[in-house]
């Protein structure tokens, strides 16, 4: 039977050695994510949100258990295979935007496409389309240092979606933004999720983000404490 889930984790465990102590960052996490979800991993600091996001994003591998992302077992991937998976199918949005300072907005957004076998024309079209989605086409020639925090995060979103990935992982995407910019960003992401059917998974403890989620997974001490859908009427921010 064909696997219909975009992501599945089975008894996922991640431990770190801190001196003589072993820290359990994830404790037997079993989760399934479908296509086009708009899901948040919530919980206090140190609850394992970012660790889980990193493993799903093949930036890290589990200590035990399994994480299957788009049919590929993350724990079995070589560095090169993991890099290819990230490049082709996964977009990342970071708390600190992580834009490359020497490149223009256009070049930052175009960057993930450089590793794909695309013509310059195709790259240009896709980059302009991504900048249009986030409403920054007019800032294409600006450098990241010339942008506000909200604009920078929108560039990061454009960079994450430019290759039309199946999955976007956003780690505290609004942590450095004010309320107005946060809502703007979240609305943009919600629209992309709806229009492009891209799966968004957030790691957050920001209530503004939580208000937009359609599914909320609460992690406490590395374990799933609660996994619940958020009904439209419960959502504070989302205006779907």
């Amino acid at each position: 039977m064909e696997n219909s889930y975009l992501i599945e984790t089975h008894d996922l465990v991640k431990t770190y050695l801190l001196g003589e102590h072993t820290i359990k960052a994830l404790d037997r996490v079993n989760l399934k994510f479908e296509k086009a979800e708009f899901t948040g991993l919530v919980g206090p600091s140190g609850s394992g949100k970012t660790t889980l996001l990193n493993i799903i994003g093949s930036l890290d591998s589990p200590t035990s258990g399994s994480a299957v992302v788009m049919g590929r077992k993350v724990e079995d991937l070589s560095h090169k295979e993991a890099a290819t998976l990230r490049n082709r199918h996964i977009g990342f949005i970071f708390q600190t935007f992580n834009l490359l300072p020497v490149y223009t907005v256009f070049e930052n957004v175009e960057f993930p496409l450089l590793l794909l076998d695309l013509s310059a024309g195709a790259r240009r079209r896709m980059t302009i389309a991504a900048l249009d989605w986030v409403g920054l086409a007019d800032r294409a020639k600006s450098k990241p240092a010339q942008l506000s925090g909200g604009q920078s995060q929108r560039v990061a979103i454009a960079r994450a979606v430019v290759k039309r990935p199946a999955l976007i992982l956003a780690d505290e995407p609004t942590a450095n933004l004010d309320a107005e910019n946060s809502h703007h960003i979240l609305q943009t992401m919600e629209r992309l999720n709806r229009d492009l059917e891209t799966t968004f998974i957030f790691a957050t403890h920001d209530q503004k983000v939580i208000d937009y989620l359609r599914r909320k997974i609460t992690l406490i001490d590395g374990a799933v404490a609660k996994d619940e859908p958020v009904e439209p009427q419960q959502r504070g921010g989302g205006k779907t």
Partner: protein
Amino acid sequence: MILPKLALRNLLGAGLRTWLNVVVLSLAFVLIIWTQGLYKGMNDQAERASVEAILGGGQYWQEKYDPLDVLSLEDAHAVFPDGLKAMIETGQATPILVIQGTLYPKGRIHPVFIKGIDPDQKLLSLPTQFLKAGEDRFPALIGSRMAKNTGLTVGDTVTLRWRDADGTFDARDVEIVQVMKTVVQSIDQGQVWVPLDRLRTLAGMEEEASLVVVARGSLERPQAPGWVFRDLAFLLSDVRQLVQMKSAGATILYFVLIMLAMLAIFDTQVLSIFRRRKEMGTLMALGFTRGRVIRLFTLEGALHGVLAAVVAALYGIPFLTWYARHGWALPEGMDSYGFAIGEKLFPVYSVGLVLGTTVLVLVITTIVSFLPTRKIAKLKPTDALRGRMS
């Protein structure tokens, strides 16, 4: 092909830091080529001057002739064979007779080599035409260093003593007819040039010579029993060794220059890798493998060399060309350098020197750039994104 573009963008984006490194490296480039060009010029000038003044296209030595052995000089003369005689008659060679002697300038004793040469010879640049004089005079030609050491000037008469073929001492007063200014010390210091026929007669060595200089460009090498042909490689070996010895000093200088430039690049690379960990993490998140990140950062460092070559070309080519045309006026004291240079030293830059230096600098820059990037091979993407080094 994206890596070179990205590397260049990153490098240019780094601004002042990049240009400082590039300028230092370009200085090293230009100075290496300049100093090596000077030594090449020195070598070429020394060789050319020696060839024009005394070496010609090679020399036939009487088998006992050894300019470094005064004891064997007594026997180092003979009548040259027919093959050489034919060359001399057609102007393709000129004979020189060398005997040991003593000069007595102002009551002092100066051991010298007395060299007899045909005043009509056109093969060497020695001003032998001054030796054409009547039978009543015994003309002698000396070099300016010799003149300085002995205190002799044109018109002075000085006693010259020698031993003839029978071992008998003989002496004559010679007249200094010319003091020649030459850069070739081997025809100057301790040398007295006199007409060949007079010396042959006075020494009892009729038709004899110690060496026969062959014309430049002459390919004729007749069989000459009892005579040994010395080619330019042999005759110039001392000059070349001396230049090599001198250029060893320059090698140390350019090694220091390269080291300084490389230190700057190494430092920049280390700093880059330390400061740009988050960027590395981002690159990995965007799909770069560690290998690709290493290649990118190595290329960034290596491009310093390429930019330096371009910058060096921009100011180096006009500078070096000007220098090659106008030369470097040498101070008087340069005579003590040990061999022929001239009043001006003209550097010579060969294609091999320029290409060799460029390749050398590029290779060293690449290696130096690569060394710090090896740390990236151990870098975990998650640590890099947090700005930590694994």
